[in-house]
């Protein structure tokens, strides 16, 4: 899933933009001017801020306890008391959906951070230093790339399963770990090719001629110019990671109850699909909206950094 989408996006993103679009303005400020004018950017940012607030302080949105089951009212349709109705256990779906944001956002953000750190480091090592280091890093990347994200996730999560007593952060940490382990290769590949395109530029050669240390060249010349495609793809990947987490939970091996998450909620709702489809609707809707927000943000940022798409 990730590999494929990343390649699609990577190919769409095309070459990292070299040079400045306008005289006197840096690439970043030029991109920012473009972004500010793009309504899609503002819609996605609003959605993302909303979800982050939801994840941080769910109490702002609801004062119902998501773990309070009213079995008598199980499967109730949406009504004034429970806005989204109640699920098969009699949980308030609205409260569950609000509280479910935390797991998905946490998993998405943490996984993206870890994959970017590993991917960028590996990509710079391979792209900047080249030679045997490049061969070594590229082959290691290929090894992990050859195992599809979902497949690796299923294997790992069944090797180290959760039980009811697992602490919340441990459960989330495991999902983050496995997705990071199998998610970084696409970032590394992208970063490597991006660095390879930046490296021959005159300003890099000039810095080297002036005696700058490799670390300084990488930090202040290569990185700022090679990072744009990685930022775009990582933003979109964040949405993909949220989906994969939900898929693992759907298969019963990602997050597991009592953890409250959209994936778990969707998985629980399937039993009652024929009679009470609203139980499935709301968590799916929120999950899709979150994924959509990150994809749209990535799209908007790519368009802003890519003068060709204007």
């Amino acid at each position, binding site marked *: 899933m990730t590999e494929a*989408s990343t390649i699609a996006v990577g*190919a*769409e993103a095309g070459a990292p933009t070299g040079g400045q679009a306008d005289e006197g303005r840096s690439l970043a400020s030029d991109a920012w001017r473009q972004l500010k004018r793009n309504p899609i950017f503002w819609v996605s940012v609003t959605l993302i801020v909303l979800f982050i607030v939801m994840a941080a302080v769910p109490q702002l949105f609801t004062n119902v306890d998501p773990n309070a089951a009213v079995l008598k009212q199980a499967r109730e349709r949406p009504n004034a008391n429970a806005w989204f109705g109640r699920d098969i256990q009699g949980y308030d779906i609205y409260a569950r959906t609000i509280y479910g944001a935390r797991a998905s956002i946490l998993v998405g953000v943490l996984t993206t951070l870890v994959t970017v750190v590993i991917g960028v480091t590996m990509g710079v090592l391979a792209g900047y230093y080249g030679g045997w280091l490049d061969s070594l890093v590229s082959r290691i990347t290929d090894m992990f790339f*050859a195992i599809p994200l979902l*497949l690796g996730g*299923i294997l790992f999560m069944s*090797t180290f399963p959760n039980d009811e007593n697992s602490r919340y952060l441990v459960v989330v940490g495991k999902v983050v770990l496995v997705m990071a382990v199998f998610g970084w290769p696409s970032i590394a590949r992208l970063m490597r090719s991006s660095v390879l395109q930046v490296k021959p530029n005159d300003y890099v050669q000039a810095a080297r001629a002036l005696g700058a240390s490799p670390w300084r060249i990488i930090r202040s010349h290569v990185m700022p110019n090679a990072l744009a495609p990685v930022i775009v793809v990582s933003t979109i990947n964040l949405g993909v990671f949220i989906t994969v987490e939900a898929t693992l939970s759907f*298969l019963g091996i990602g997050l597991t109850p009592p953890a409250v998450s959209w994936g778990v909620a*969707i998985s629980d709702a399937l039993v009652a699909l024929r009679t009470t489809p609203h139980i499935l609707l709301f968590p799916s809707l929120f999950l899709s909206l979150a994924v959509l927000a990150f994809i749209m943000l990535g799209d908007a940022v790519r368009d802003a950094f890519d003068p060709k798409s204007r």
Partner: protein
Amino acid sequence: MYKYILRRLIQMIPVLLGATFIIFAMVYALPGDPTIGLCGERPCPAAFVAEFRDKHGLNDPLHVRYLTYMGNLLQGDLGTNFRDIKVVDELAQRYPVTTKLAAMAILFETVIGIIAGVLAGIRKGKFIDNLVLVSTLFVISVPVFVIGVSLQYSFGLKWPIFPATVGSDATVYRLVLPAFVLGSASIAYAARLTRTNLVENLRADYLRTAIAKGMSRPRMLGVHALRNSLIPVVTFIGADFGGLLGGAIVTERIFNIQGVGGFLFTGIRNRDPVSVVGTVTILVLVFLVVNLLVDLLYGVLDPRISHD
């Protein structure tokens, strides 16, 4: 060309070894006692457990077991699982089903994806373009298992156009709905990719020249614009193969298809490491070979890319 293929094949060896070792190490760390449930309701006698562990080499250190396994693999032996079924036989039975499913998904991807992408690309900014962009965005954001169960419910149960589950008899007709579900996200990606590239190429100088010289629109689109625009799409579809194999686990579970994905998932559930390692090894091998083929195809489609 042959040098290139040879070099790629040689590069594939460490990758395959590494990937299978990662899987091997992970699977054999699977918790639980494989003899549970083999002797009815009672725990197995100690003598049986000892013999069982010895027979399946469970007492050897990990690297020894790995090397033995790879040695057997070279002779086409994927091992016998704990239920005394040869993994090769099982896979031989199930592979055609998953291959059929994946091939149909790819067919949907290429046909629907490219047509939608071309329609959107040549009418950039018009209604159909926006329709394609919005609907693909929708398909990409909804997780595949939600699409799967929703379509199964709608077209399998509510309006029974297609059978809701596939079961043991996987005919093309029965696989239509699952294949569509499996390919859905990729259809959307392929459409967007085609559109982006077509829009970019339509502005290229060589096409402006072609228009200026009075070339007919179908010829310009079909021969000049599309051929160049489809190169990234071909790469994408090839690379997506791995994703399809992973996604097949979910799709086969929803639609009860007796394919490789289902076998893998049962293997994991039943703590059957031999089946799991065998299945995944073959999946990774297929994935690597498909990627190599795509890279070679790349050179055929675009003569500027040479592998010499």
